């Protein structure tokens, strides 16, 4: 089966998922991101790498934060950015996803940054472009359903590498709503590819996907047991609509059992870092004291996120 995100020479054609992405490409993205972090510290924060390129932010699902980071990344590379909030425009009028894509192709798009509520939607777009012979157009998955959020996974790997160095000696815990999390899936795939020997997921059975252990993780339900001696804690966001109902009784109970507090954090290694993809629910999945504490690297994640997205965009466009 043709790998839809690689070109015929094995190079990166689209970034759709970290699942099955060759280790060399993954590391190359992280390596390429490093110099971009310095751009942000300059007075003129712009590079001419994507001058004249048109990048369409296609958000079929609302997200101000992710869209903004992609927009900043593209603008720092001198690209022209068009933001399309598709959830409120053409699809509401009955236009199909691929009709929208064809229209934008006719406007000479060079790159699509796509967020969609349905898992696999960017794959459909990539296949359509392939069938149309449009290998000049690239797709970046900015989050599809529960499936993948590869740039988030990459920025998390960048953060871990920044603070911890060698992946092959680490113990990493991912905590919370893994079931609905595209972030968790991308993190797990990247950690496995980078050779992290101990990857744990911690949460109630209602929020862990069936047979998740087959992705290469150990399953824990007890927070203290799961956090014992880990080097990295990756918290996940719990969506409001999942807090009361058949998956969880109340946010209070979730906080009591799986919320990251200073007391639970003590089970991890003393130099463990705490990560969160944002936006945080303070007092639900994480205590403010931890979120703002010395071990938290949540804001650096955001900064690295822009550099990683610049790296991905420049690699795809080159």
């Amino acid at each position, binding site marked *: 089966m043709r790998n839809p995100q690689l070109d015929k020479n094995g190079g990166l054609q689209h970034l759709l998922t970290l699942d099955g992405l060759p280790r060399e490409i993954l590391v190359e993205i992280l390596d390429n991101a490093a110099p971009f972090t310095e751009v942000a510290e300059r007075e003129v924060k712009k590079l001419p790498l994507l001058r004249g390129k048109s990048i369409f932010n296609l958000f079929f699902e609302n997200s101000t934060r992710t869209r903004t980071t992609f927009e900043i990344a593209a603008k720092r590379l001198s690209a022209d950015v068009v933001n399309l909030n598709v959830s409120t425009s053409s699809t509401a009028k009955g236009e199909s996803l691929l009709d929208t894509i064809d229209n934008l192709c006719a406007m000479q798009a060079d790159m699509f940054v796509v967020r969609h509520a349905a898992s*696999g939607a960017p794959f459909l777009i990539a296949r*359509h472009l392939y069938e149309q012979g449009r290998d000049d157009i690239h797709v970046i998955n900015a989050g*599809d*359903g529960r499936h993948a959020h590869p740039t988030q996974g990459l920025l998390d790997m960048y953060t871990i590498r920044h603070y911890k160095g060698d992946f092959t000696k680490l113990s990493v815990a991912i905590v919370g709503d893994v079931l609905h999390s*595209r972030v968790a899936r991308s993190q797990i795939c990247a950690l496995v590819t980078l050779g992290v020997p101990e990857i744990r997921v911690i949460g109630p059975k209602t929020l862990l996907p069936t047979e998740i252990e087959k*992705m290469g993780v150990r399953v824990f339900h007890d927070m203290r047991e799961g956090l014992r001696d880990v080097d990295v804690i990756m918290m996940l966001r719990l969506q409001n609509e999942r807090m009361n109902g058949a998956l969880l009784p109340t946010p209070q109970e979730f906080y009591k059992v799986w919320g990251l507090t200073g007391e639970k954090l003590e089970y991890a290694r003393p130099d463990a870092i705490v990560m969160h993809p944002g936006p945080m629910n303070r007092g639900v999945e994480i205590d403010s004291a931890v979120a703002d504490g010395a071990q938290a690297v949540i804001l650096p994640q955001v900064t690295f996120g822009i550099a990683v997205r610049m790296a991905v965009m420049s690699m795809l466009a080159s």
Partner: protein
Amino acid sequence: MKIKISNGRVIDPANASDSVQDLFVADGKIAAIGQVPADFTPERTIDAHGLIVCPGLIDLAARLREPGFEYRATLESEMDAAMAGGVTSLAIPPDTDPPLDEPGLVEMLCHRAKKLNRAHVYPVGALTIGLKGERLSEMAELVDSGCVAFSQSNVPVVDNAVLMRALQYAATFDFRVWLQPLAPFLSRGGFAHDGEVASRLGLPGIPTAAETVALYTYLQLAKVTGARLHITRLSSAEGLGLIEQARSEGMDITCDVSINHLHLCDRDIGYFDANCHLVPPLRSERDRDALRRGLIDGRINALCSDHTPVDDDGKLAPFSESEPGATGLELLLPLTLKWARESGLELVQALARVTSDPARIVGIRKAGHLAPGARADLCLFDPEEVHRISRTGLRSQGKNTPFLGLEMPGRVRYTLVEGQVMFGDSVQ
């Protein structure tokens, strides 16, 4: 018209016979096999040397999409597909729009089909009005109009009290009820088998419990009501286990599986191939292997196409937003042969699952076998000829199948319905 079909390898699964013979057709019926009948002068002779001559296939689920979904397929296009696939009898699920819940609709469908004069149709009436699971349909009237059984297709009855009453009412007349085991709430919002693949792809899952919980319910209700139950489209090893258990307790119950579930599993979804979006979902490799074994030894009684033509737009959407289903009429025979070959099964046994066995489930006596006097519904095919499944090759208006691009054994050369050649080469 008198036809002599000479030198074919005549396989009649109903009689477990398999030998090279001449077969004689007269007045739409099989006149004789082997010995030429007295005063028989063929008006046409078909040279069947190298071909297999078997009863026309009987498909337990062929959606012709009329009424209501003519943009996806029409009676004409799908009857053509049936003829090209050697399928001469079709049970039609009630999930048309409006559903087959009214005698007039069923009569109209039968009338239209009869006018086309190709495959025989056997409508399966809606068990409840509009398939809504609230009010019983006029079952006695529907049977008078031509319905052979009642079902909910894949729209489960939510209220078990209604289901129990529907089974009781059907049992009053000893009508057959065909139910697909799909528990409504457990399957709601899911699109793929709840297992490793769905977890990895982030597709909301349908647990195996959606099948087993429904089966427990159906089996219990069939037991207390005495309804004649046929279970459609099994998908799991556990589901098959429950049916075996019910049989060991003395229940008379039949079941079928689709060609898709016989050959594919959740891994075939690959990178979100919407052609693998099916109801019930493709389950694990272990489930598929259990279904294959079950069909070999007859614990699963029949193989069907679960023919569901979908237009291209219906499939050009993200997996969870695409229309479920796969076209299948032209794949039923090739996939039966492929399964037989891979399982080391004799053709006479394999073909029983698509001829004599489904005939018993539908209640067809005049076809599905080759005894003299039977309807001359015949399929003549070359078992050795390999062909590739392609969009252009498929006559069905639906080009949606996970098997596109694959090579398949078995090419239908002639299809006869009531002694008339409805598909095949020019007269010899």
